[in-house]
């Protein structure tokens, strides 16, 4: 029977196919983006401070220098963050560039390229709480050698 002659009210139907198409597209997009975001966050426990004066860096251009701890054993360490080997495993600049501790001149060079691309960029130094100062200090030197005058040390924000 042709719909023209169908009696009674018309039954509306929604075509969900484009919606599903778009949704899957979004899912794929967010999966890729979240990979990049999580790559930038090297797993570690950042220092917890007494009477912390940390502040939030607003929406500015920043490049994160992460110093990875010897291993990451998850949030179980949060109660005793210092009870962990103090050797650094690698240094990561931004989301993808990894350097061994013997490759600090390359880190300097890569950081110099970043700061030349954008002189306003803020450098964040994100190190694990348990790292030895003797491991961190050469990396601070490498950052200085790239012509960066100030770094932002990452620590936990105080609880409100």
């Amino acid at each position: 029977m042709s719909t023209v002659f169908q009696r009674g009210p018309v039954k509306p139907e929604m075509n969900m196919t484009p919606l599903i198409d778009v949704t899957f597209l979004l899912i794929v997009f967010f999966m890729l983006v979240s990979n990049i975001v999580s790559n930038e966050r090297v797993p570690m426990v950042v220092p917890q401070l007494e009477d912390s004066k940390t502040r939030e860096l607003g929406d500015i251009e920043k490049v994160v220098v992460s110093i990875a701890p010897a291993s990451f054993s998850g949030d179980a360490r949060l109660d005793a963050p210092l009870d962990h080997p103090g050797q650094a495993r690698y240094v990561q600049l931004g989301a993808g560039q990894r350097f061994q501790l013997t490759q600090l001149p390359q880190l300097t060079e890569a950081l110099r390229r970043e700061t030349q691309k954008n002189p306003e960029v803020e450098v964040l130094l994100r190190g694990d709480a348990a790292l030895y100062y003797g491991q961190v200090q050469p990396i601070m030197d490498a950052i200085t050698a790239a012509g960066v005058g100030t770094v932002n040390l990452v620590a936990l924000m105080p609880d409100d």
Partner: protein
Amino acid sequence: MLEAIAQPEKLDAPREHPPRRRRRPLSGGVGQLNLTAMIDVIFLLLIYFVVTSNFRTDEGVLTATLPQGTGAPREATELPPQKIELRLTAGVVDDTTVAIQQGTTTFVTFAQLRDSLAAQRLDPEAGQPNGLFEPDNPIVIQAGPNVRWQHVVNAFNACLAARYTNISFAKPVS
């Protein structure tokens, strides 16, 4: 005759009153929207965001000045400011502990260090006209090579909390 008895009624015999076709309701025929697909997608999105939404943790930053130069003494054309030297030494038995020293004074906690530094600050507006050090007096944090990074950042934070502005890190001292 026998045959007629043995043969029961035909099962598929047409019933006398076939069921009437159900009538459409006369008015108010509401079309049904199939929401299943949309709900599927929405739950998918919900789960996705629930899983991915814990990327940000509550981390903040402390802006610091990096060590400059080679450590060689500068020209003695003017009297250099008396810098405050904070010495951090890791515990011998347990290197997660730290000893905090300013000169010969020893502190147990970083809160003590903060209070002591704040009391030494020259700040007439805050009622401290006799303080020893200007707020921009250099502070050097000298940490041993096996002092944990958390203690170093804590010392830095204590200096900031005592409202000093010129804090730097020295090379590891053993």
